[in-house]
C-alpha cells in the first residue's frame, strides 16, 4: 500500500466494521443501516406519524424471515420519530418469546406503562400493575380503551388535548395466535381501530409466519387494519451482495477527515472483493445458494475481519459454521464398540425394515457378525496351518453399557408413543427389550467412515 496509516486508525476502522457486524439490532438505541428497505421503513414511519399527529389508530403486520431486518426497520423508524416528536409518544414492546401468554403480556404492558408514567411525571403512588391479572387488565384497558360507552362520561370531549399516543411493538406475534381466544391481539387491535380524538394507539406486529393473517380469529381479523408489510430475502445474487456490502462497509461520514480516505479505500476494496473472484465472494455465493442468511454470514465474517490485515485488507481465514446434525459429530467420537453397536442396530433396521430396535436385536446381530468374522479369520489361519484363535469376547453387560451410553448421547431416541393420550414412558419390560429409534442410518455411517476398513466391512450387508 502506498501510504501507511497510523496503527490506531486501522484499529478504529476494524472496530467500526466489527461493530456493524455484531447484532445490535433489537436494542433500538442506534440506527442500523439496512439495504433496500427504505420504502417499507417510510411506510411504517408514515403510519406512526399519522398516529401521533392525527390520532389515526392503525395496526400493521410486518412479516419476514429471520434476519430480514424487521425489528431493525421498526426500530429505525421509531428512532426517527423520537427525533422528530421527542417525548410525544410511548413505545411498549412485548415479545412472544418472553411473555409467552396473554396474561404475562398484559402484566408487561402494565409494567412498561408504569415505567413511562414514572419517567414522565415522577408519580409512583399509582400503578397499572396490580396483584391480580384481572385488575391489571382492567386498569390497562381503562386507559387504552376510549370506545367504551360509560355513564357520565362526556363522549365528545376535548379536542386539543389527547392522551399520549402509544405504539405497541409485538415481536413474535404468532405466539399470541396460539391461544384460542387471542385476548391480547383482540384488545390491542380493537383499541387501535377505535382510536379516537383523545386516544391514539398503533400496533405493529412482527412475525416470521407468512400465513399469520389466516391464523387470526375472525373477530380479531375484522379489527385488524389489514396492512401487511412483507420483507423477503434478496432474490438475486447481486442484491444479496449489496446487502452484504451494506453490512460490511463503513459509512465514511462517521470518520474524522484524516481517516476519510482510509475508509473510502476500505469500502472500495470490499466492493471489488465482493464483485470479483475472491474467497469472500465465494463465501457469499455459497451462503446465497444454501441458507441465504445474513446473520450466519455475519458470524462467519467476524473472525475474518478480526484477523484481517488492515494495511492490505487481506482477510483472515473464513471459518465454516457447521449447522448440521450433531449426530454426525457424535458418531466421530464414539468408541469402536459403540460404533459397532450403532452399525448393528442400523443393519437390523435395514434388513428387517423395522423402524425401532432394541438392545437384544442389536446385540444378536453384533454377536453374529463378530463370530462370523472370527470364523473367517480362523479359517484363514487354518489354511495357513496355524492354531485356532480365540477372539476377544465382549460380554453382554459391557455392550449394554455401550447401548446405554448411546441413549445418553442421543443417538438412540425413545419414541414418543401415546396410548390413549398417555405418554407410555412407563415401560417396565427391562432395559434390553426397550425399543428405540436410531437417528442415523448405516449408509450415513458408511459414508462418514469410508476410509476406515473395518467399518466398511461391518456396514456391508
Amino acid at each position, binding site marked *: 500500500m502506498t501510504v501507511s496509516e497510523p496503527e490506531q486508525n486501522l484499529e478504529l476502522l476494524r472496530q467500526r466494521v466489527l461493530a456493524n457486524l455484531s447484532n445490535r439490532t433489537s436494542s433500538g438505541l442506534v440506527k442500523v443501516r439496512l439495504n433496500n428497505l427504505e420504502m417499507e421503513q417510510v411506510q411504517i414511519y408514515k403510519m406512526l406519524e399519522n398516529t401521533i399527529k392525527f390520532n389515526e389508530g392503525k395496526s400493521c403486520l410486518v412479516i419476514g424471515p429471520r434476519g430480514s431486518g424487521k425489528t431493525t426497520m421498526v426500530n429505525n423508524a421509531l428512532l426517527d420519530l423520537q427525533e422528530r416528536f421527542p417525548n410525544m409518544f410511548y413505545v411498549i414492546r412485548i415479545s412472544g418469546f418472553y411473555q409467552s401468554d396473554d396474561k404475562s403480556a398484559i402484566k408487561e404492558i402494565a409494567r412498561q406503562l408504569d415505567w413511562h*408514567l414514572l419517567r414522565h411525571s415522577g408519580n409512583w403512588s399509582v400503578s397499572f400493575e396490580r396483584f391480580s391479572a384481572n385488575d391489571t387488565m382492567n386498569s390497562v384497558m381503562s386507559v387504552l380503551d376510549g370506545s367504551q360507552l360509560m355513564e357520565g362520561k362526556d363522549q365528545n370531549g376535548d379536542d386539543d388535548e389527547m392522551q399520549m399516543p402509544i405504539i405497541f411493538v409485538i415481536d413474535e406475534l404468532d405466539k399470541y395466535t396460539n391461544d384460542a381466544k387471542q385476548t391480547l391481539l383482540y384488545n390491542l387491535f380493537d383499541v387501535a381501530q377505535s382510536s379516537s380524538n383523545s386516544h391514539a394507539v398503533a400496533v405493529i406486529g412482527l412475525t416470521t409466519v407468512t400465513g399469520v393473517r389466516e391464523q387470526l380469529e375472525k373477530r380479531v381479523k375484522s379489527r385488524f387494519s389489514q396492512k401487511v408489510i*412483507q420483507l423477503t430475502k434478496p432474490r438475486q445474487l447481486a442484491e444479496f451482495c449489496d446487502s452484504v456490502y451494506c453490512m460490511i462497509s463503513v459509512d465514511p461520514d462517521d470518520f474524522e477527515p484524516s481517516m476519510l480516505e482510509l475508509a473510502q479505500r476500505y469500502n472500495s476494496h470490499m466492493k471489488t472483493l465482493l464483485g470479483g473472484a475472491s474467497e469472500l465472494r465465494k463465501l457469499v455465493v455459497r451462503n446465497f445458494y444454501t441458507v441465504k442468511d445474513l446473520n450466519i454470514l455475519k458470524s462467519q465474517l467476524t473472525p475474518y475481519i478480526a484477523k484481517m490485515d488492515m494495511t492490505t485488507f487481506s482477510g483472515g481465514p473464513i471459518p465454516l459454521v*457447521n449447522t448440521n446434525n450433531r449426530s*454426525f459429530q457424535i458418531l466421530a467420537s464414539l468408541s469402536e464398540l459403540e460404533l459397532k453397536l450403532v452399525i448393528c442396530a442400523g443393519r437390523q433396521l435395514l434388513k428387517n425394515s423395522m423402524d425401532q430396535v432394541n438392545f437384544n436385536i442389536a446385540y444378536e446381530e453384533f454377536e453374529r457378525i463378530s463370530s462370523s468374522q472370527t470364523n473367517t479369520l480362523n479359517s484363514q489361519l487354518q489354511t495357513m496351518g496355524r492354531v485356532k484363535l480365540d477372539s476377544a469376547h465382549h460380554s453382554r453387560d459391557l455392550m449394554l453399557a455401550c447401548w446405554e451410553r448411546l441413549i445418553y448421547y442421543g443417538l438412540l*431416541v425413545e419414541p414418543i408413543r401415546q396410548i390413549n393420550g398417555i405418554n407410555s414412558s412407563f415401560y417396565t419390560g427391562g432395559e434390553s427389550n426397550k425399543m428405540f429409534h436410531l*437417528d442415523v442410518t448405516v449408509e450415513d455411517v458408511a459414508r462418514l467412515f469410508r476410509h476406515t476398513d473395518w467399518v466398511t466391512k461391518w456396514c456391508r450387508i
Partner: protein
Amino acid sequence: MSQKSLQGWTFELKEPENGTPRRSRRSAAAAVGQIRLTRDADRLELKKGDTVLVSSGTGPPDVALIRDIDFGTDTFLDVRVLWFMRRSEADDGVLPQDSRLENDVFLTPIAEKIRLDDIVGPCTVLSASQFAAVRLDSSNRGSTFRCQRFSDRDSYFSDLVDWDDYVSRGTEYVYQQVKELAIPPRQGSPRKKKRTDTPTRPKTPKMRSPEPMVLSDSEELDLEDLDSAYESPLEERPRRRERKRKPRAAQKSAKSSSPSKSTPRGLRKVNNSVPVLPTVIRQKFFEDDNELVIDDDDLQEVVDTDGKVVKTFRKAKEKLLPSAKLQTLPCRDQESAQLYSSLLDAILSQLGRCIYVSGTPGVGKTATIREVIKQLFVNLANDNDKKMFNYLEINGLKLMSPPAAYEALYHKISGDNVKAGAALDLLERHFETKDETRLPLVVLLDEMDQIVTKNQTVMYNFFNWPTYENSKLIVVAVANTMDLPERLLTNKISSRLGLTRIQFPGYTYAQLSEIIKHRLEKIERANENKLVISKDAIEFASRKVASVSGDARRSLVICVRALEIAEMEFLSKPQQERDELQGRYTVGIMHVMKAVNETTSTPVANYLNSLSFAAKMVLVAFLLRRKRTGSAELPLGEIIDEMNNQFGMVLFSELKRQLSHEQLEMLEVLYGDENSRLRVDGLGYIVRELDESGVIAQQQLRAERLRLVRLNVNEDEIIGCLKRDALMADLIATM
C-alpha cells in the same frame, strides 16, 4: 392504634389561641385545635413542638420532634413526628467538624407516625448557645441534645442554623425549612429508577392526606426535587435504620386492623384509582378547517393546491376510519328499532330481561346497541327528568377470566372491588332483595361466547338473575353465531335466554356503499364536488366485501387504504402534473383494486420466490417423495435422502452455469468442505426456517431423521411458484 391503645393516656382539646406563632398554617389542624396528651403513669405531657425520645427496639432511643397530634383517619389519634438523626448514625467522614459532640442531633425532613406506646420520655433539644450553658451530668446526658444543623439522613448536612429561632416559629415552619435546607443543592441529576420498597419513605402530608391541600407560598416546593432528594440517599443508606424500623412497623400492622400504610404494597392498595396517562397538548397540525399548516417535510415543497388535496385526503380518511364518530348509523334502522322498543319496555316495566344479539364481526352490533343506549339515556331523561337506568359494558374478551365478569358487575353496583367468588355471593343477595329505589341496570355482554366456561356457571348466572323478581337486570348478550344458545349452551341456560333474539345480517353491497357514502357526504359537500372517491370505486369495494363477509370494517379499511394509495400516487407525480390537476384528485377503481388485492393476497408466493436454492430443493424433495409414497406426512430423513439422490442424478445445468461464473462446483457449494456429502450445508437451519415461516410444519423431536414434516400451504401454490424459477425448471417439469 385504636381508641383502646390510648389506654393510659388522656387527651384534652385546647381551643386554638389566635395570634400565636404556634398557630398552624394548615387549616385542617386549625379546625381541631391543639391536642394535649397526658400519660397517666408519669404525667408526661405531650403537645405539638415537644421533643420526645422514642423507643427504637434496639440501641438508644430515637429523638423526635412532634410535628402534630391529630385525630387520625385509621387510628384514633395520629402523632406525627420528625426524626432527628443521632450523631452516632452519621458517617464520620461527612460529618462537619464542629458537630461531632456526643449529643449532637440533626433534624431530618422524614416525617412518620409513631405509636404512643413507643414514647419513652421527654427530652430537650437546645440550640448551640443554650447547650453551652447547660452542664451535662448523668441525669440529663441521655435526654439533652444540641441541634445546629439539618440533615437529609445520609451525607448531606445543612449550614449552621439557629434552633431557637426555628422553634419559636412553630413546627410547620420548622418542617418546611428542614425540607428545603436538608436538600443537597447539587441534586439536579436526572432521576434514576425509583425504588418502590423504601421502608422509611418520606411521608409528607401531600402524599398521605386524601383531601387536596392548599399550598402556602413556602410549601410550593417542587415535589419532584423533593423526591429526588430523598430517593438517592435512600439507596445508599446504611441498613441499620431499616432494621430498626421494621419491628415497629410489624407491630403496628399486627395491632391495628386498618391496612398499614408503612409499606408500599399497602399504600398501593389504598390507592386503587387507575392512573391516568399524561396528555400532550398537540401542536395543531391543521390550524383550522381551511388553512393547511405545512409542517410535513414532504409537504414542504407542495404548493397550496396540493396541500388542499392532501388535506382532503386526510379528512376523508378520518371520516372513513372505523373509529370515526358518527351521528347516526345508516342501514340498521330495523334492528335498532327492535332493540329500542324491547329495552324501553324492559326499563319502563322494571322487569329483568335477556336480549340476544347475533351477527358476524363488523356488522355493527356493538355500535348499534351503544347508539340505542345513548338515545334511551337522552329520551328517558328528558321524559322523566331523572336518570332512568344504569348501564354497564362487559366484554368477554377484555376479561382475563370469565368469573371476572362478576367483579365488574359488582363493582358497577356497589363501587367495591371484591374477588369473583365473594362478588358472586353478594350479587346473588343483591338481586334477591327487594329494593324499590333501585334503577334498572342494562348490561351489555359483548363477545358472550368467551365467558362460556365448562360448566357454564357464569353464563347461567347472567341469564338467571334477570328472571328474579326484583333484579331489574337487563342483559343484552352479543355473540357471533346465531345458534350459539343451542350449540354451546345447555338447555337450562338457553331456556332462560328467552326468545328476544335480534339477528344482524351481513351488510349487502348496497348498504356498504351507503355507509361509505354516508361517511363521505359531508366532505363532498364541503369540497365543492371535488369528489374524493368515485362512485364506481365505492361500489367496487362494497361488492368485493359484501360477497365475502359483509364486514363494514373491512370495506372501510379498504377505502382508507385506497385513499392512501391514491395519496402516495399523487405525491409521487411530478410537480407539473400536480399543478395541472388543480387540486382535484379522484380515487378510482384502480386504487380500490390495489387495496383489495393487498388485503386478500397472501404473502406466501412472495416468500416462496425469495427462498434460497437449497430451501426450494427441500420443498421439491418433499413433493417428489410424497408423490411416490402418497402419504401427507414424511419423516425428514426421507426428504434428506431424496435431496441427496436428486443432487446425484439431476443435472441442474442452470445452477452449474451460474456457479461456473463464480468458479465454484455445485456439490462443493451445497455440501461445503465435508467430503461425506451427507447433508446440505445448513440443512437444519433451512428446515427450521421453513417451519417458522409456516410453510411446513415440523414435528418437535430430538431425532432429526424421524421428525415428521407436513406441508402447510397448498401444493399447487408451491409448484406454481417454483415453476417460474429457472433453477428448478427441469425438476418441476417431471412432476
